[in-house]
């Protein structure tokens, strides 16, 4: 049972406030914000209590999404609800930010009204909600050069125009009603890796969590068939096909997915509802089918002048055709590091010392597979001792691997039936994120 729901900006502005049961006082929002700001650090605990009021909150899009409730309610339900609410708002408003919530507050009130009644969750299915929600979303899209880049030289069809623009999936679902012809469907395979590599390059932990997400902008779509790799196998024992198997440990599906063809042909059948939904989730534990994407070779020593010298060589072991983007490695350094001088192997990289988080952040915008980058950092550390070396490492890497899946899961085909009238576009996108990629030194 949810007593109130409110959305706050990170600065504490009231964006949305709805009281469902009229039981609590109206100053709860400020009580909550006081509690949040009274804590040091930016990570308030998920559950906070004030008298007999319990706040549960999540952070999404830089906003606090808060529900107040009673002690005996299920935290799983409420957190899942808040997550679902934020994704509904994202579906309806196009994107999640303070600005979009502010501009669409009427729409969000309308949503809340339909989703929760008297503190009880009624429905969060976008199929049901679309009949009730009448307000149009307001979007503001800043002018972007990126939109122009789709047009090739002299208007020629370029390779680029076959790739969906990154903004394509950040528009409100309802606009498809008006734009008519623009019916699109996105199937995203998103994987998150968490890896721990030992100092000698031994893989100490490797987990992959993946999901297939469908984002549908089609007003009417009766059935969709998604074909996965034929040799996709679940569990340790089961192996299929002759090729290299694509294996996962656990696999679960959205309840709307029909699995009658899954066992034989690895085909998922479903009728996607409008908006975003996760069709399939899977995990792979303690195993990677290919080599881990990055390795680090490091030498750390003290020079005669009392400085700390770090030679780092980072190698990208992806296949040569793919590349990692937005690679950012965080190298913890000893306390008391004052200044940094650096030699990087190419001009597009950058590195800076962040005394606040006691780390060097080394950024590489694009890192093609099969290549190697190196960096030399000289650190001025006050009070450097031999024990300070203990504080160096482990290196944390965050990156994005577009068009790449760590498990090797691929989508063979994507068929819609009946064939859509008018032009419809189907997009399949793959991306692997680093959930946590740690290399010990």
């Amino acid at each position, binding site marked *: 049972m949810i007593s109130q729901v409110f959305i706050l900006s990170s600065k504490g502005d*009231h*964006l949305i*406030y709805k009281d469902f049961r009229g039981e609590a006082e109206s100053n709860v929002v400020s009580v909550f914000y006081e509690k949040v700001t009274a804590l040091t*650090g930016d*990570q308030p*605990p*998920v*559950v906070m*209590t004030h008298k007999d009021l319990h706040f*549960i909150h*999540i*952070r999404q899009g830089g906003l606090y999404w808060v529900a107040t*409730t009673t*002690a005996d*309610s*299920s*935290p*799983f*339900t409420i*957190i*899942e*609800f*808040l*997550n679902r609410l934020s994704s509904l708002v994202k579906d309806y408003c196009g994107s999640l930010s303070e600005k979009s919530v502010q501009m669409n*507050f*009427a729409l969000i*009130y309308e949503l809340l*009204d339909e989703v929760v*009644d*008297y503190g*009880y969750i*009624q*429905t969060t299915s976008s199929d049901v909600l679309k009949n*009730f929600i*009448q*307000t149009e979303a307001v979007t503001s899209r800043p002018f972007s050069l990126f939109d122009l880049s789709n047009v090739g030289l002299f208007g020629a069809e370029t390779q680029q125009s076959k790739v969906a623009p990154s903004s394509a999936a950040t528009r409100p679902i309802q606009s498809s009603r008006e734009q008519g012809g623009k019916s699109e469907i996105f199937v995203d395979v998103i994987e*998150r890796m*968490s890896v*721990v590599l030992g100092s000698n390059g031994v893989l*100490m*932990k490797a*987990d992959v*969590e993946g999901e297939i997400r469908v984002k549908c902008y089609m007003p009417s779509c009766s059935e969709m068939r998604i074909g996965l790799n034929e040799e996709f196998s679940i569990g340790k024992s089961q192996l299929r096909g002759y090729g290299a198997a694509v294996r996962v440990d*656990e696999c*679960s599906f*959205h309840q709307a997915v029909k699995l009658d063809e899954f066992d034989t042909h690895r085909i998922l059948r479903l009728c996607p509802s409008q908006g975003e939904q996760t069709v399939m*989730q899977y*995990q792979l*534990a303690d195993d990677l089918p290919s080599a881990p994407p990055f390795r680090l070779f490091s030498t750390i020593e003290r020079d005669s002048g009392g400085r700390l010298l770090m030679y780092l060589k980072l190698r990208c072991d992806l296949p040569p055709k793919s590349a990692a983007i937005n690679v950012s490695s965080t190298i*913890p350094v000893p306390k008391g590091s004052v200044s940094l001088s650096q030699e990087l192997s190419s001009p597009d990289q950058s590195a800076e010392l962040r005394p606040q988080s*006691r*780390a060097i952040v080394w950024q590489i915008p694009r890192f093609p597979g099969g290549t190697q980058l190196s960096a030399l950092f000289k650190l001025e550390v006050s009070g450097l*001792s031999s*024990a300070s070396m*203990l504080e160096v490492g*482990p290196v*944390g890497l*965050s990156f994005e691997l577009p068009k790449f899946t760590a498990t090797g899961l691929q989508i063979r085909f994507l068929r819609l039936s009946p064939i859509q009238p008018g032009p419809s576009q189907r997009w399949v996108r793959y991306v692997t994120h680093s*959930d946590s990629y*740690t290399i010990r030194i």
Partner: protein
Amino acid sequence: MPYLGSEDTVRELRRALSNPNIQSDPLRYRNTILRVIRLMSQGVDVSGLFSEMVKACATVDIVHKKLVYVFLCSYAALNPELSLLVVNTLRKDCQDPNPMVRSLALRNMTNLRLPSLVEYVEQPLTSGLRDRAACVRRVAVLGWAKLYNLQPTTEIDAAVVNELYSLLRDPDPVVMVNCLRALEEILKEEGGVAINKPITHHLLNRLKECDVWGQCEVMKILQRYRPQSEDELFDILSLLDASLVSPHPPVMAATVGLFLSLCSGLPAVGLAALERVRAPLLAACGSVSREMRFTALCHIQLLLRSLPGLMGAHYKRFFCGYAEPAYIKQRKMQVLVELVNDENVSMLLDELKVYCTDVNTNTAQAAISAIGRIGRSYSDRCLEILTGLLGLKQEHITSAVVQTMRDLVWVCPQCSDTVCLALEGCEETLQDSQGRQALLWLLGVYGERVSSAPYTLEMFIDGVRSEASLGVKMELLTATMRLFLCRPAETQDMLGRLLHYCVDEETDMCVHDQALLYYRLLHCGMEETQKVLQGRRSDPSLGVLIGRSTEPVGQWARSFNTLEPLRQSAVETESVSRGSPEHVTFAPKPNTDLPDSLNSSQDEKVPKGSDGANWSKESPADVLASDAITPFSLSLSPALSPEEFERLWLQRQGWHVDEGAEDGDEEKDYVCVEEHIRCPAIPHCSPRSLQAAMQLVNIQTLAFTQPHTLPWRVYLYTHAQHTRSDDTCQSTLVLGELLYTGEADQKTGGETGTGDGETADKIAAEGREQEQVKQREEAVVTGLNGRETARKEREEDRVKVTLKQQAKDEEALRGFLSILTTVLHTLSSERA
């Protein structure tokens, strides 16, 4: 901005709302209303516009209507009279052909929350229950709950309740679930909606139609149901099996909750269900949403209390990601500590070591204390890491390490040598009061082994004037006193100065009085001071291994899937002892305190005794047949420290050698027994399960060798008590050793337990056992009798049991032996 000059804005809006030009243009009218709502949600008081907004609600545009209703519901309580006007419009809307309009009107009518409007609302609600459109019925059903809560004193209309019960068969699943919710609220007094067999089966059959939220709600309500037969129970459980591994964490959690409540009488089935949810719980632990991860982690901690082995193989899933928030990292470390075992300990410590230098000081300190916890079982490796960390010379790390070492030494006194070595030089880095208190405690207790202790204390004493922390001053006093006892020459002068300062100049009454107490104590002489100050150095209740006994599921089942497990963190981290261990742990009085301990042990005898009796009823009858006559029980109090055990054990052995030949026709109060028990698998079972099993019957195990090593030994003790016919309760101390030498020849039997008057005198003089005196009087008779014939069999699957009993009581010894035999047999059959 709206906060400034909001009155002007409101005035301007009022003008706009009443402007006929704007009213006639739907778009402009709607925009004006939007501005009002925007102001409202920003917190500006726009209640002055109520009458204008009431007028605005007469419109056909649904978006417009919805906006106005948002406003009206927020401010209706302030304007009950004007709200009456709205009800008319709303009632008209309830007749609208569009179901969306009908449901909207009905919902807002009930959301106005005005008791004065109830009479107008009842009729539309009644007809709403029979509406064609499901969305109207959904609203109407909940509307009754709202209405009831507005006037909880009024009689409940039985017709409505019946109607709601019949709507449980509504084709729309949301209406069904809403009926449950409404009935729960309306019938709160009677304990909520009636859950009988037909309703339960109906709900279970329709569970599939409901969405995630509905399923959770239904399962929560079904927790009240008690199946009438075991067959029915298992039918229900197999029906729910698929939801148990649902990819939606809320459904999974609700199903587990229902399983636990249904299986409360069948713990084994409940445990099997918990095994099943391992995969979905682990998946939730890796979910994208951090908050969901946290929730899952907290619940895993809960499960580990009953199933410590549940996540053993998956410990790597609890390694922290470097970008995770501190609250998740700390929880993960708590879980990691639970999962440690011989195979993964080095991996785990490597990982935890990395967290110790985390930027976030809380995380770093949590990691250090986690290493300390592991140190209770693997002290060498952990102390090595902790000592290494001191080299960093960082304030927060050193402080955490010293505190951790203090806690560790309190539990594992054998670590004290390493700790004493590591302490040198720490005082320079320590800044916070917690860390310094810990250091002072260690210096006080182990002062004779730290060569620089007097100098460190002197430094503290020199700075006592500028010391702000009360705790540090108190600890300093105690530490200096203790050091004075073992190194008087070096400490005398500084103790004098400290006492002088504290008695004469200190303003805080606590410190002042403490100093005065010590001063007077010193006047009473060294003996007395020693008695007061030289207390225990370790926690006697814990022994060498920290037994993590498994709790029954029932202990936490009620808090599963509530907010409770998520909140515990605050409590736990606080209780991780700030202050010296003596104050924290519930330490029994030092054993010089005779009368006190006598009282306490008598208090405890009664409940323990009944426990034992219960247990004996459940155990196989043949074992305890003899004990059925005399009530017999085992108890762990008063606790015995490892050192004390060792001393007693060796003392007895000495007697063997010296006086074993003499045949006892003298007084005896001590018996030695050797017995062989056939239990092949025992030496291979894990120390933890053995200890858990022993504790169940109140036998404390003190030390183990690792499984699979030869010779394999376990040392244990207990207090056996049984009530005699003349209602005197008698207690004896039993020390035991289990020895398994594998195929090597076993030396058996032969030895005789003896004792004589002299030893008895010695024991009495020690005044260790409170029953001693009584015992001596009683222990007049029999000779050597406790000795069971030791069969000289050399089969490898026999475990040799050597028992030593102090204050001889044959009956008790026999009882103890039979209990021990049963436990070992049970364990060994489980293993097989």
